[in-house]
């Protein structure tokens, strides 16, 4: 119980650290050069961690295994200097929008870590972890696209190069934190965090030198957000590394997946106090998206459980579950390219503009639900057949049903509000009396079929479990 509580506390700390890092980066980036912001925050984080006992690491460097030492140093440089600096260099005020940036620097980074942990770490996590991460990302997209209407969330629509480079930053971050997780398994949290943040601070200081003259002329208030950012980075780094060392990097990445709903909850609370006027949230999408994010993150968390071949499910129902899930996956992929929304853009600036078109599955939040559900169903049935702990595929199956329930609720949530072919003057006045953007959902049989088959697959798995289709059971009965 204590271990679970400690893991839960570390998860909460990592989520809050990641969220504070995002918010404070947004504040700090307007007051100091990017390299100085990242350098100062890494230095502050390093000093905090080192002062907590990490100084002793410096005296024992020679005793540390060289491979672990290198992993810790490189991992820290990648995760806490290279990745944040590259991501920050792509950010400007509202370009990309806050929703896009949050998605690309937390959710997607979390998904990349899960993928990296599955493909490149020696002890593989369950396949359901990847499906859970995809589910969580789909939910996050629906959530962020419901922050306001019309939404500013349009991945790869207005700033594709900047957002692609944020993805590259995510790859660097994933490589870094996976290296740190590997180092932490041998060196422990304190040593790994000190090494990693030390490397990031050293590189940060060197990279900050050209910008120091500009930064020096700024007042003390300009430095304050970067110092606070350093505190947030320290909290995230220590809690993430601690969790990765105990539960694996994949489970620790759930903290990144959970940032959008937690941040939204705070924003909803802030708005409910009426400090900033009318609440712009589309609450149905916000609540549905948040639920899917948390369910997906839950699947990721429980997917770290160990396998036990004696628990493997066998039999016709399991085989049906697998093959139905495969068909569901195929249909879900096809449905990304089938019609999902009727869109209408109208503007009355100096002349009237009116355009109507059909949006495809990948452009709507509901369009990704069948894929998430089908992947969860497939991963759940495969892992059940491989002997993964029952709670893993049970949670995955429950997530399938959640996706099926979420799909109609997200039916009118578009992920592609902005277009480069609509006059900018029209798009910039969306939501005023001069222009509007509206969508209406299209019921697509392929999409409905995909999610229905995913539900059937999850149901078949439940039937198999209920009928006692364990591989080991006949043997046990025979022995009796």
């Amino acid at each position, binding site marked *: 119980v204590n271990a679970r509580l400690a893991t839960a506390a570390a998860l909460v700390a990592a989520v809050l650290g990641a969220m504070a890092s995002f918010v404070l980066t947004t504040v700090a980036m307007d007051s100091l050069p990017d390299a100085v912001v990242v350098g100062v925050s890494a230095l502050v984080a390093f000093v905090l961690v080192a002062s907590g006992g990490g100084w002793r690491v410096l005296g024992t460097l020679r005793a540390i295994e060289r491979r672990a030492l290198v992993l810790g140093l490189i991992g820290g440089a990648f995760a806490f200097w290279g990745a944040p600096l590259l991501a920050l260099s792509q950010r400007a005020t509202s370009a990309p929008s806050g929703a896009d940036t949050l998605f690309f620097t937390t959710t997607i980074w979390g998904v990349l870590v899960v993928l990296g942990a599955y493909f490149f770490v020696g002890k593989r996590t369950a396949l359901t972890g990847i499906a859970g991460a995809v589910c969580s990302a789909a939910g996050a997209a629906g959530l962020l696209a419901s922050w306001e209407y019309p939404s500013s969330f349009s991945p790869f629509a207005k700033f594709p190069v900047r957002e692609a480079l944020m993805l590259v930053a995510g790859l660097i971050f994933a490589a870094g934190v996976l290296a740190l997780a590997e180092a932490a398994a041998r060196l422990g949290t304190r040593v790994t965090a000190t090494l990693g943040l030390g490397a990031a601070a050293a590189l940060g200081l060197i990279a900050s030198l050209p910008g120091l003259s500009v930064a020096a002329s700024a007042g003390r208030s300009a430095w304050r957000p970067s110092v606070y950012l350093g505190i947030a980075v320290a909290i995230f780094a220590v809690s993430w590394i601690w969790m990765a060392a105990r539960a694996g990097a994949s489970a620790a990445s759930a903290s990144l997946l959970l940032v959008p709903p937690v941040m939204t909850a705070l924003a909803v609370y802030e708005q409910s106090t009426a400090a900033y006027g009318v609440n712009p949230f589309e609450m149905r999408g916000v609540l549905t998206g948040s639920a899917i994010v948390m369910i997906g993150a839950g699947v990721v968390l429980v997917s770290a459980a160990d396998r036990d071949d004696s628990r493997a499910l066998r039999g016709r129902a399991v085989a049906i579950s697998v093959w139905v899930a495969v068909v569901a*996956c*195929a249909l879900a*992929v*096809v449905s*990304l*390219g089938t019609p999902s929304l009727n869109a209408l853009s109208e503007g*009355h*600036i*100096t*002349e*009237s*503009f*009116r*355009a*109507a*078109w*059909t949006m*495809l*599955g*990948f*452009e709507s939040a509901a369009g990704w639900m069948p*894929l998430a559900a089908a*992947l969860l169903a*497939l991963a759940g049935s495969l892992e059940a057949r491989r002997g993964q702990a029952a709670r893993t595929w049970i949670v995955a199956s429950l997530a399938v049903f959640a996706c099926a329930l979420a799909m109609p609720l997200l039916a009118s949530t578009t992920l592609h509000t902005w*277009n480069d*072919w*609509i*006059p900018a003057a029209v798009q910039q006045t969306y939501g005023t009396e*001069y222009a509007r953007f509206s969508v209406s959902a299209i019921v697509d049989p392929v999409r409905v079929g995909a999610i229905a088959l995913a539900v059937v697959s999850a149901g078949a798995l439940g039937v198999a479990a209920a009928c006692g289709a364990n591989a080991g059971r006949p043997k046990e009965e025979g022995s009796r």
Partner: protein
Amino acid sequence: VTLMMALAVAGASATGCQRKVQVKSGTITMCTAGEVVSDDVKTITVPANKAAAYSVRTVTVTCDKHTQLQALYAESQAALATGDTKLAEAKLAQVLALDPAYGKAKAQAAAIAKGGKPAPDTSLTPSTGTTTTAPVAPPKPGETTTTVGALGKWTPDSITGFVAGRPLSDALSVSREYIPSGSSPAQGLVIVAEQFRTAADAKSGMEHEVKQSYTKNVATLKINGHDAYFGTDGKRFAAIGFTDGAVMVALELTSPSSPQNLRSLAEQVAKQLP
């Protein structure tokens, strides 16, 4: 599955590049009296990357009928002014034949029929608020025959102490926001000019849109020959409103508090208008 996903997204993206969009395109010609003179707007399907080239243009002109009405009504009022009731009666009869509700024609004709001598209507002048009296003709690229073009004079590019924003307009109104360029008791300024059918309608609009909204610190002013109304909402907004023929002009200033202190600034701004 990953490969299938990649193929599907690539395929969908490719489809998106060749996306077809239904757009509306054409010209609506409206009379300053509010009637649609012609409408050739069509819905057509075009490639998405060409969609921005299509729009619906609204051109406002004074149609033949209303050009004729304005002329006849002006002649009738001129006849009344000179005491020629016979000519006035004839002209008013022609006006009423075209539009029984035009101006004060019906009341004046009735008064003449009873042997009276009605006073001429000075509030409605043939040229006021209209931009062209020419017959309806197809608009040419770049021509400034729209009502907005005429209303544009009320939202000038330059107001002392303010930086002009982009004017927003539709067929019968224009508004423009101005931001103080330096230290100013006002946080912002908005000027709105609205075209009405008649001067009486404009005055009625002023009653409803300005006088009823700004009921505090009321004062009447003379601005460039116009009888202007000053008022505040007692909280944040101060406004000056006046009519110029069938056009109502309102300028609104905002301040964090004490909007009554904006009166002199509002007057200074109003005096920079025509």
